[in-house]
């Protein structure tokens, strides 16, 4: 099966100016969102990692697809859906689409990672903070169902502030909708791998970001359910700096491994290999 793609090393090309978002306000200077260190952008290297603390700067979905796969083919680009009539929502969507080059907060498709096919979903925090709308949910359901039909694993890079305010209860229903598709994928005996990236919060944490068979994270990613400010107001305590960061969540037992961005593609390749069940008719 992988042979189909071995002769097709064309990288996924995207017209989005996703790169612009990591450039920062100060020209060639960028500030690490985790440790605050300032450095020249070139110093971050091709993986855009802070030289001081190892935090991975936020990426656009297309940029991440290029960085993490041998090749990528987009699926479900044309799923259309009526948008709820909520003041300012249509304008916000148009702005997010222009800024990211995406139609929705998640990019879905099929990728090859170290010669292995996988279905792939990448959320983009630059698109309305990766919030979960009905169309975001529909794309994820389509991805899991197509992966199930094609006997493919799913890798998902999460990045989201949670529910999409403008869509109300319909947004909340996506937690159940996507979970049902994951249940069908799981029932078929296929593996689902999550990579938590900064930030993964709210309803996304309370559903598909925490439903992986294996849950990885990028260093220092913010991962949680309730927001820090709400918690501090509720319990009248100041929370430590590492609260809801990947390292703390791993120590609490919720993350299998924290993997630095330059090692991530190979790590995923290894996991995909381990989960390739030998089949009687396989010509390996």
């Amino acid at each position, binding site marked *: 099966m992988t042979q189909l793609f071995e002769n097709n090393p064309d990288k996924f090309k995207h017209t989005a100016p996703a790169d612009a978002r990591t450039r920062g306000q100060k020209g060639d200077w960028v500030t690490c969102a985790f440790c605050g260190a300032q450095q020249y952008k070139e110093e971050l290297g091709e993986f855009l990692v802070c030289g001081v603390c190892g935090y991975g700067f936020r990426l656009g979905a297309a940029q991440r697809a290029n960085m993490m796969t041998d090749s990528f083919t987009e699926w479900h680009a044309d799923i259309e859906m009526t948008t709820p009539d909520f003041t300012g929502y249509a304008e916000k969507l148009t702005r997010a689409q222009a800024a990211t080059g995406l139609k929705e907060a998640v990019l879905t498709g099929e990728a090859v990672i170290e010669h292995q096919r996988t279905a792939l979903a990448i959320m983009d925090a630059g698109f309305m903070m990766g919030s979960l709308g009905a169309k975001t949910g529909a794309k994820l359901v389509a991805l899991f169902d197509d992966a199930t039909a094609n006997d493919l694993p799913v890798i998902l890079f999460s990045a989201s502030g949670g529910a999409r305010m403008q869509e109300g209860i*319909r947004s909340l229903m996506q937690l159940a909708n996507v979970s049902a598709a994951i249940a069908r994928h799981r029932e078929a005996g296929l593996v689902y791998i999550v990579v938590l990236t900064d930030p993964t919060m709210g309803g996304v944490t309370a559903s598909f970001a925490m439903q992986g068979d294996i849950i990885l994270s990028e260093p220092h990613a913010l991962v949680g359910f309730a927001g820090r400010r709400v918690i501090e107001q509720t319990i009248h305590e100041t929370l430590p700096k590492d609260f809801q960061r990947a390292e703390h969540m791993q120590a609490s037992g919720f993350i299998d491994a924290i993997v630095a961005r330059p090692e991530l593609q190979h790590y995923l390749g290894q996991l995909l290999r381990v989960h390739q069940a030998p089949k009687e008719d396989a010509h390996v």
Partner: protein
Amino acid sequence: MSEKTPIDIVRASREDRFLARDIIAGLITDFQELHGDRAQGDDPAIIGGVGLLGEQPVTVIAINRGAEIAEKLQTRNGSPEASGYRKALRLMQQADRFNRPIITFINTPGAFPGKTAEEGGVGQAIAESILQSMSFKVPMIAVIYGEGGSGGALALATSNRVWMFEHAIYAMLSPEGFASILFKDAKRADEAAALLGLTPQELLTAHVVDRVIPEMDNHTAFYEQLRLDLKNEIADLQKLSTTELIAQRQQRFAQFS
């Protein structure tokens, strides 16, 4: 059914007209409470156990806001921690194993926003509850009897049927929270409530809920009617094959995309 405005219904939903233990006592005979998540604790914000609905053995799980101040503090006004959701999931798994229908009663402002809740993985606990609910082989009915707050409510509402009391609400965020994001002013909750579509009638129209249960001042008569409705609904769901039952539950949520 009701001429109240959305914010009136929000206020009514928080009035504690119905308490978890009273609902269980009113509907279920021979209820036996089962405690603990088998891992670390026993969250009083979730009451669970087994009993009889008429002749039918059922598993009942209810979010408990508590009756008086001391219990309200213990249950954080009905805001479960991770351990509470794990207790609920354990009892659902047990129901699935013994082919007992599951009835959940929901009334929560949301999962508790606290340090121990986060460190206990409350998000993961809700996620697991939702995921496993999609595969249980038994009829599941959820009844929202007060506040249905966000993911903390949905964790127990991924069922074949979702019902609501006449003065209950269901939303992805509280009107106060929505107002503070939208208007930067939590005091404009009345406007936010009108925008959220959180009333039973709006949710019925949107197919988020399947039935609105008229409330009665006479609780004895009310419970008698509700017990009959639940019995009939369970009997109807039991006519479906396992495959049909699971497909119906999953399809119920597919309509929102």
